[in-house]
């Protein structure tokens, strides 16, 4: 047994499970540097410019996604459902940390958005500032902010509509 292997055996370090979709990285320091501004894209339900995350004075649902992430497509269903139910009562933004360029264009992101029935604000976070601020170690990752801008709830992995409703209602009630 060589040195490296001996150390591996001793340490047994850092094995990660393989059957779940999610990285359970543990949510680190939360809320650092929030709110931040993200660039927004011209797409269904969204216009080019920038947006404050979380939005000012309303409950905000933040969804972190990427176009290569299959569960993120599924996440869009729950988000769309909730969006229809709450309308303008709740602000919603989906943000990708993918860097535009190379073989990924804004058109590709827009296509993904259309294909998955996005109809709310679509943002870009190429430096992963928002991911860092939320302490997100995986995607999909959904966070619910109250109207005062505090994170009330967040979780990595797929979130269903029922959970989202519960957390949004709580944030609305306690605002």
């Amino acid at each position, binding site marked *: 047994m*060589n040195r*490296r*292997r001996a*150390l*591996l055996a001793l*340490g047994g*370090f*850092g*094995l*990660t*499970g*393989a*059957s*779940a*979709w*999610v*990285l359970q*990285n543990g949510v680190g320091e939360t809320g650092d540097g929030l709110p931040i501004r993200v660039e927004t894209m011209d797409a269904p339900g969204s216009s080019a410019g920038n947006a404050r995350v979380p939005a000012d004075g309303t409950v905000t649902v933040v969804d972190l996604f*990427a*176009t*290569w*992430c*299959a569960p993120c497509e599924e996440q869009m269903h729950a988000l769309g459902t909730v969006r229809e139910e709450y309308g303008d009562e709740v602000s919603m933004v989906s943000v990708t*940390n*993918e*860097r*535009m*360029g*190379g*073989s*990924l264009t804004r058109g*590709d992101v827009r296509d993904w958005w259309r294909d998955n029935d996005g109809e709310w604000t679509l943002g870009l976070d*190429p*430096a*992963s500032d928002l*991911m*860092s601020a939320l302490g*997100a*170690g*995986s*995607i999909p990752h959904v966070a619910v902010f109250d109207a005062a801008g505090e994170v009330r709830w967040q979780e990595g992995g797929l979130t269903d509509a029922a959970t989202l409703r519960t957390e949004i209602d709580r944030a609305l009630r306690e605002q």
Partner: protein
Amino acid sequence: MNRRDYLRTATAVGLAGSVAGCTGLLDGDGNPNVTLGEPDREVDASSEDLPYPAWGQKVPDVSVPVPLEDRTVSLRSIDKASLVTFFYSHCNTVCPVLISAMRNIQTHSLNEGYADEVAFFPTTFDPARDDADRFRAYADEMNVDTDAGNWHFLRPESKDRAKAVVQEQFGVRFDRTEPEDMDMYMFAHSALTFLVNADGYVERAYRSKSPDADQIISDLEDIRT
């Protein structure tokens, strides 16, 4: 004068012994082989104590095939800054995040005009399933630009070779698992991404399942020649 030229000059005129006395001129906390300083570590350990090639150590002396280019690359002979990580394409959890971070760095290199100064070596530890065709499809799925010329998927020839290279040489442990809810095998594995300088020394070993692409971009900028 860049670091390597400086060192060449220093060595050529026999100044090597005096370098220790003027480390202020060099980064790397006195280690002449690396540019970045010793990383802050959570535990009090030196690079020699760690089960993987760490700061200041030479990248393992291994050669691994590049299926999409019909060649084999010797990791020590790469003469530019490079990033090496380990993955398998059927992975649903850690690997797409590792590859996505690397892809975002590749895109930064393309956008900022330094694509030819850096090379990316994502290395599979699942050679049974990850072949050239699979790599092509995976690159497409992950929006990797394989035409850029700086992205090179590596594939050890066999399962045994993968153990020898990935686990024993790079300290990235992986164990095959048979999840009950899936009809295929997966792996439990650790996550490491290495930043290697143009001289073949490890500048950083990022032990993260979701590497901070901006941090790596910044470290990369410091060591690019």
